[in-house]
């Protein structure tokens, strides 16, 4: 199975986190750097995970299958789609095809990490498995701070995010119907995270062409394919547009490079000033 990297790393991180001594332990440093940045995802995943768990058990199935899905599948929108697989009969080929279509956007996410992950041999398996929309957003917008080991930082972010998702699923499946306060609207935390990252990228980018392509293509795709089927056509349109405009975009990016690097891959190690600064 894909989850092959020591679960006790997180436990060790938690123990060191409590002990409070600021030593040079790389896992502890990575955990300190990662945790505050995952708080928005904590809010979003716990809430959406609860919604999933609640819906799953409402079909009459026991809670542990929901937890197993969040452990092994770990894909938010896909798991909601998969709820249907347990109600009406579906063939396995049909299920595979639906999954492929719903998750095809992930094929494009890994492109940003192909080179980087070549240097992360042991960690690569789990990092690739856990590359959700939200984890992707964090990893490509918030590089490891100076002095923090990148592999462990990426791993901590990924494992924390999945733990929120699994915890939310379990909570929803076990006690979801008895939550004492109204959580409606909490899922907006994830939209807010995307907006913040978009603003940060906009402010630091020397070329806004890619961001504009990303705004226009999904709207075009929505007009043609409807709001629930926009992702895959939008991804393909965006990729085509980015390839077609490669020359001007690369010129735009190159012009800015004398001043400050702008694209995540080349961003300087960030001191934690803008991102996650409120968690201290």
């Amino acid at each position: 199975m894909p989850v092959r990297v020591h679960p006790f790393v997180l436990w060790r991180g938690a123990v060191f986190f409590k002990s409070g001594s600021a030593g040079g332990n790389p896992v502890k440093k990575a955990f300190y750097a990662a945790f505050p940045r995952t708080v928005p995802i904590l809010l979003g995943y716990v809430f959406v995970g609860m919604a999933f768990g609640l819906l799953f058990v409402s079909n009459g199935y026991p809670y542990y299958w929901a937890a197993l899905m969040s452990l092994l599948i770990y894909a938010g929108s896909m798991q909601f789609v998969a709820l249907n697989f347990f109600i009406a009969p579906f063939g396995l080929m049909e299920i595979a095809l639906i999954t492929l279509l719903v998750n095809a956007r992930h094929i494009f996410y890994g492109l940003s990490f192909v080179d980087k992950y070549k240097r992360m041999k042991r960690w690569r398996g789990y990092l690739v498995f856990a590359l959700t929309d939200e984890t992707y957003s964090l990893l490509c917008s918030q590089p490891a701070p100076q002095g923090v080991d990148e592999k462990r930082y990426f791993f901590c972010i990924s494992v924390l995010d999945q733990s929120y998702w699994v915890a939310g699923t379990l909570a929803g499946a076990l006690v979801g119907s008895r939550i004492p306060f109204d959580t409606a609207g909490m899922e907006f935390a994830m939209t807010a995270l995307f907006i913040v990252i978009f603003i940060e990228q906009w402010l630091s980018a020397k070329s806004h062409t890619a961001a504009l392509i990303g705004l226009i293509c999904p709207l075009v795709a929505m007009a043609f394919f409807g709001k629930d089927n926009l992702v895959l056509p939008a991804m393909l349109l965006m990729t085509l547009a980015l390839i077609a405009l490669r020359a001007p975009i690369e010129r735009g990016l190159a012009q800015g490079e004398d001043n400050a690097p702008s694209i995540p891959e080349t961003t300087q190690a960030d001191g934690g000033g803008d991102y996650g600064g409120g968690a201290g």
Partner: protein
Amino acid sequence: MMSTGQILAVILVTAGVTLFTRAAPFIFFGGSRPTPAIIVYLGRVLPPAVMAMLIVYALRDASLVSYPYGLPELMGIASVAGLHLWWRNTLLSIMGGTAVYMLAVQLIFA
């Protein structure tokens, strides 16, 4: 109700195909040969585009032509953007914007 074996089969197939979509770029370009220039380029420029797409996708259910006319979403976005341009503090922007949105859907436009 499905049997345990059927449930496991459904979960494993879904998990396997999901993992394949995430691993595909590494399977095709992750070897020891240098990554093609076009892939390196796409890896650099896709993140800002994808972020915009995820925003559009997250807001897809907001209707502009029926009550409440996307107003909760507009208030949420304005709060996030305003807070962020003012303080540049990620957590504050996200929590503030989410609080405004929750107030909007639970109290104002309930």
